[in-house]
């Protein structure tokens, strides 16, 4: 199942971009990883169509810190674009394995990381074990967000 990206991000906003690259220049993800910079993302959407981005796994390297949006001279809501693109990517099955695993864990245990080792550490420091996570509640929330349509939980 696919979604309409331009429902969540006004396509006209893309035309505001004149490729000054202030966004990519400010991007912390670009500093450390070969991510798809915001400028390049917009340029690909404009010149080659957003499908090219949606199929690219590098889309997931953005950490949605919002700095690009903050510094964009044209006030393009870049993070909205990235979130919309990722939604589409996830629905098409372009979702990194590790992220899929994290979601699965969240749905099963109510936590996004494995914590039983943590309990030992807490006991060592004289702390009470963590209370049980509200698994059903978390799962309900995940379902309401429509995540079950994207990934098996």
């Amino acid at each position: 199942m696919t979604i309409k990206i331009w429902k969540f991000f006004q396509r006209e906003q893309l035309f505001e971009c004149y490729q000054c690259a202030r966004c990519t220049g400010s991007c912390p993800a670009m500093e450390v990883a070969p991510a798809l910079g915001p400028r390049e993302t917009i340029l690909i959407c404009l010149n080659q169509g957003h499908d090219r981005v949606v199929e690219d796994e590098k889309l997931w390297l953005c950490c949605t810190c919002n700095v690009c949006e903050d510094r964009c001279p044209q006030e393009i809501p870049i993070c909205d674009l990235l979130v919309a693109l990722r939604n589409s990517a996830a629905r098409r099955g372009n979702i990194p394995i590790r992220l899929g695993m994290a979601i699965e864990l969240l749905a099963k245990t109510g936590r996004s990381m494995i914590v039983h080792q943590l309990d030992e550490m807490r006991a060592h420091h004289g702390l009470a074990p963590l209370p049980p996570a509200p698994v059903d509640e978390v799962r309900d929330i995940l379902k309401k967000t429509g995540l079950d349509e994207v990934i098996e939980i």
Partner: protein
Amino acid sequence: MPRFHDHTTDLPEEVFQLKNIDESSVSPGPSNDLRIGVYVCHCGKNIGGTVRCEEVAEYASTLPGVVLSSDSLYTCSEPGQEQIKSDIREHGLNRVVVASCTPRLHEPTFRAACESAGLNPYLLEMANIREHCSWVHLHDKDAATEKAKDLVEMAVGRATRLTPQFELTVPVNRQAVVIGGGVAGIQAALDMADAGYKVYLIEKSGSIGGRMAQIDKTFPTMDCSICILAPKMSEVGRHPNITLLTLSEIREVSGHIGNFKLKVLKKARYVTNECTACGDCIEACPQLAPDEFNAGLSIRRAVYLPFAQAVPSTFMIDMDLCLNSAGIVACDRCFQACAHKCINFADKDQWLEIEAGTVVVATGVDVYDPTALTELGYGRFPNVITTLEFERLINAGGPSSGELIRPSDRRRPQKVAFLQCIGSRSKRSSPYCSNVCCMNTIKDALLIKEHWPDTEIYVFYIDIRAFGKGFEDLFRRARGEGVTFIRGIPGEIIEDIATDNLTLLGENTLLGRHYRYTMDMVVLSVGIRPRKDSEMIQRLFNLSTDTDGFYMEAHPKLRPVDTTTGGVFLAGAAEGAKDIKDSVTQASAAASRANILMSRGEVKVPAITSRIDPEKCTACGLCARVCPYHAIQGGKELGYYQVVEAACQGCGACVPECRFGAIDQTHFTEEQITVQIDHALTRDPNHKIVAFACNWCSYAGADFAGVSRIQYPHNVRIIRTMCSARVDPAWIERAFLKGAGAVLVSGCHPADCHYNNANQNTARRVEKFWKRMEKLGINKDRLRLAWVSAAEGAQFARVIEEMERGLHKLTPESIQEDAEKLAKRSTGKSESS
């Protein structure tokens, strides 16, 4: 017995009364001796591509009074005009209707054609089927054609009621005022003074020279800026026809084209004209402040000369800084130091009154302050400076005597970066391109290379705009000298605390790679923006501003230095970002336009003034109270009021105020407009919006929507008045009675009114009408008041779209019901009164 009331308070219900429209004047068809010629213009494909002009012309021929109707490719062309002239002579036409572009463009053309064929120019009427029709309904040919028919029918209807008018001639005072002593103001003043007219050059600061005096070299020729400006400045200083008023500001303006009266506040200089600028006083002065001329990079005293070449070459005292600011002489060191005893602490501000026939506005610009862009660190990192600061830094007369040093340690930087488009082309600052920064940076880069060739220079840009004569050559030279151009503005600047060096993080978009450059100094190429106080001159002279805040020209192509206020002209960057050459060109153009007025010595004012019928006038004086120009005089003693025609500007605000129908506005009579309303609503009135638009802002805004091809619903019919204050509530009622779905009253933004805030009357009258609708249980949304400026084409389209959506909620029955409610009220009232 008529009752009088204070117009500022709300009327009690029983005296709410609208003028009764004399049905006999508007209902019967035109008399037999009318011979109307209709000309439908194709304007090439501009109109003909959307509107079926032949069909419109054919329809026009069926209208009563029309004896001749034709369509032509270009009516404004020489053959088109000749056709009109010969038709007037051969067919004895006594009214001419041209359906083409906006009357704001070609009305004078066609009026002249009529006049040369012996027809009074006021017997011409235009239907705007280009800006208000074909251009805004590009994709709906049927609807556009139907609308064009309606617009032509309205124009023909109005033409039947036109009467010949004769324009009044007023003398033009042969003195001019130039506001602003930058290079544009200097050039305009010199041109007019050389032509033999007396010129007052009014400058706010202590010396003329403006921004150009601050710049080191000019592009693309690399001339020394002050070297070419200083001779012109001193010429102003000694020209017998120029009176130079520095430290002066205009505070009040009255009058009109040819006869302005200005009140000028000339602030005290505290130093007399005998000053020889020896500078002995400087040493004596104990008070220090940042030197504005050097962009704050050096220090001046409280007694100072703005800069070495200043004209007048007279020192001045900054009284805010001087120890004697409280009016008591606490320190007289400068007085003691002055050999000629030129210091005068008792100097006072003066009020001057100046009469002038023409005015040139050359108020210049400010530069963008990049402090708000925190990621660049301007204001926090000493080695991040602006271009204006850089200009002073490498100027031989600047704080470092022309040595290239960086502020933090006063060492010569080895690596210099220029960042383009700071404060330009951005929604975070100014959305427009500032025009001069690209070339200014290239020039600065070359200057560094010229003196210190081993300096590494990096220019970070988005686009290099080298569009002018000799610009591309300069760009090529800079590349040849080894200046590195990198496409991609840094996202962030980081300062190394130990060395004060700056690290630039960004992306080279052409390589698609991240970069990290360490620089010794960063120059932000800041954009230019309208002066902070530009609003003051705008208010005083009723100028319009564009969306960016620059003063707006009367027509962007054909009247680029005129303003919508007659006799006021624009020069220099106050009209829009421009370089020195363009400023000088425009200043000479403005001076030349002003010279035309002054050399003729008289000017014709349009015959659109109000007239009062003394028979009907009861001398209540309500009209005199709303007149923004005090042009209505008279009184109870005289038994009536009358209009002083030379003072009347033709806004028409007084007409709706009169409840006895004693006033009417020439060429915008009650009868003419009522006929237009009726004709707009002959077919399918329920789906139509009648829009009243003022000539200066809203009608121009609708024109602008057309020029920008902004598409909006086709069911609006625009009726032009000079000011929105001319809109009579009786017209609104008339439109609703005739079944109009909605009515729009639109004018200039409050305080931007072309007629001294006459539009506050518009708001008052519309609000009163709303109250009435509310009381009668009529949906208030059907009457809308919108402020639309001449630059807000998109806003106009939005208003029409919203109103069109509102129409969907109405049914023919509800409209009929509302009309009956309104009708009952008015007949009931007229019986009781």
